């Protein structure tokens, strides 16, 4: 059975095509933009092409992500939390704790061997613990987003930064810049601030090995470093971390196809 999972993220949209919920046939993603429906249709077609399957070959489509209700093709949907757990367990059966930091939301969950969620937490009404925080910080520092992490790794100084608000924290950065603080130290301060936020959330849910990091921010080495330092343990950075949710949805689609 061929199924598809669509992850309607806050910033990017990902599509995964799978066979029997066991083999990934293709993955595609793009920025959601303002007309998300059109974009999704484009990405979907793209994924089908990569997998060289036809629209009618797809038995069932399940969506997930912030905009999951508005996903085209999808017959039903699953929450980001559920999808993340399913996706991670598929790729890393030994995973018990998942840390998911996307563009506008930080999430963490604990699950059992079957991918059943035991407990979870989502960051509250401030985005300081999310990817977009990094973006605005990168802009304030005038470095490219992808340079921010490597830059931070160069620093060994800890500057306390009180990151209550993504945009407001910019003025703290600006102040540091004006005090002629080395950019790499500021970059590190930024990562420590986010890592502290996420760590707090992880501690709240509790964590056990193996810990897997997914979501766009997982690609940031400095963030991962800070997390390892905070939790005093090693953790797995999922490869293709952004697609885990879509994979979870595609697996869910197999189960759901059975129901209907």
């Amino acid at each position: 059975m061929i199924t598809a999972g669509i992850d309607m993220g806050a910033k990017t949209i990902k599509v995964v095509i799978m066979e029997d919920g066991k083999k990934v046939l293709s993955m595609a993603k793009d920025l959601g933009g303002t007309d998300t429906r059109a974009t999704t249709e484009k990405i979907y077609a793209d994924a089908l092409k990569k997998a060289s399957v036809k629209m009618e070959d797809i038995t069932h489509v399940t969506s997930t992500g912030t905009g999951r209700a508005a996903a085209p093709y999808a017959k039903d949907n699953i929450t980001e939390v559920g999808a993340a757990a399913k996706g991670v367990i598929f790729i890393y059966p030994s995973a018990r704790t998942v840390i998911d930091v996307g563009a506008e939301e930080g999430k963490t969950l604990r699950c059992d061997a079957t991918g059943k969620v035991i407990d979870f937490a989502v960051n509250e009404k401030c985005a300081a613990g999310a990817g977009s925080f990094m973006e605005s910080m990168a802009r304030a520092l005038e470095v490219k987003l992808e340079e921010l992490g490597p830059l931070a790794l160069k620093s060994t100084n800890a500057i306390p930064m009180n990151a209550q608000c993504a945009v407001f924290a910019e003025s703290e950065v600006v102040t540091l810049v004006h005090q002629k603080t080395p950019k790499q130290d500021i970059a590190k301060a930024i990562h420590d601030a986010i890592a502290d936020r996420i760590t707090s959330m992880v501690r709240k849910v509790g964590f056990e090995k193996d810990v897997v990091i997914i979501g766009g921010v997982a690609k940031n080495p400095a963030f991962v470093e800070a997390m390892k330092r905070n939790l005093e343990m090693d953790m797995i950075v999922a490869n293709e971390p952004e697609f885990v949710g879509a994979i979870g949805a595609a697996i869910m689609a197999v189960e759901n196809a059975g129901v209907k």
Partner: protein
Amino acid sequence: MNEIEVFREWKNKRHEYAKEWKKRTGGKVMGYFCTYVPEEILHAAGVLPVRILGSHEPQNVTEPHIFAMFCPFCRDCLAQGLKGRFDYLDGLMIAQSCLHIRQAYTSWIKHKPVDFSYYLCMPHKVQSKRSYKFLKGELEVFKKAVEKWTGKEISDKALKHSIEVYNENRRLMHDLYNLRKAPESPISGEDVMCISMAQQMMDKEEHNQALKKLLAVLPKHKRDRPTGTRLLIIGSEDDDLDFLHMVENLNKDQYAATFVIDEHCTGSRYFWNEVPDDKDLLMAISRRYIERPPCPTKDWEERKRIPHTIKLVKDFGVQGAIVMQQKFCDPHELDTVAIRKALDEAGIKTLFLEFDVTVPIGQFRIRVEAFLETLKQEDLF
């Protein structure tokens, strides 16, 4: 100035000091929250009371224990406990005041148990004549508990002595504060804060000796910068030296300013009044804590903080007030409006600032400089 630096040292090395004290005396150390704790009784039992104050380090360990809407100070305190900074404590106690700090205490003893923990039911309605007898009764129970813990009785002689030591300490602090009334204060607010922080975490007799040394030289001491605008700092628990340092070290030609007095529990409120004479020692102690300058949680139905504050303003020649408050500190949020109104009516302009574990110095600096400009803008017009 060395006579001041010793206090800074004690404050910086608070943990080393306590551990060393234990070795030296073989006594027990009691960590405590809130300045309503009747330290005289602990001192008489040969116990060293050490107040838990802020570390001002970002942390990520309290989220599972305290809901984020409670003040940063209580979370900062708990974090130090959970991180094991105070592992040398034999006991931990709190005197009933605000809900926020209470959680630091309850979560601490739950997850980092100590031999002896105690919740002292300090009455809230200190304005009721009934509170004296009630507190005395609570103190009797407390005294027994401490005796049971330490295994020895607290004699009246010992208690009298401790009361005298604490009263002397309070008198010396007043002598220190009085020097700040001079047109040119010989000491900065930052240094005074170091002294009162040390005061709350070390042996009072030792603190008294150091204070006497300081008071011997301080009157003749001349600071390297003018006192400038005379400021009052009033509000929540405050041990943020970085902030005081920033304010007192701005460009001295334009923004010279000095904190000449404070109204918060890490400063004047801690030592302001003495234990009165009374044959009934526990009643005497009860009277001292009931009649001290109140914490907002206990300042009702009448507002007694206001006349007290206005008197401080007059006595210390205050020209402007910085009203600081720990973020989410409800008790102070319930006083701020009335306090600012009263100060305004007394012709004192106020600047309100909300404190977190660390303060965004850059943003606060603009506010403070602008505030000082509003007090002295003559040369610009």
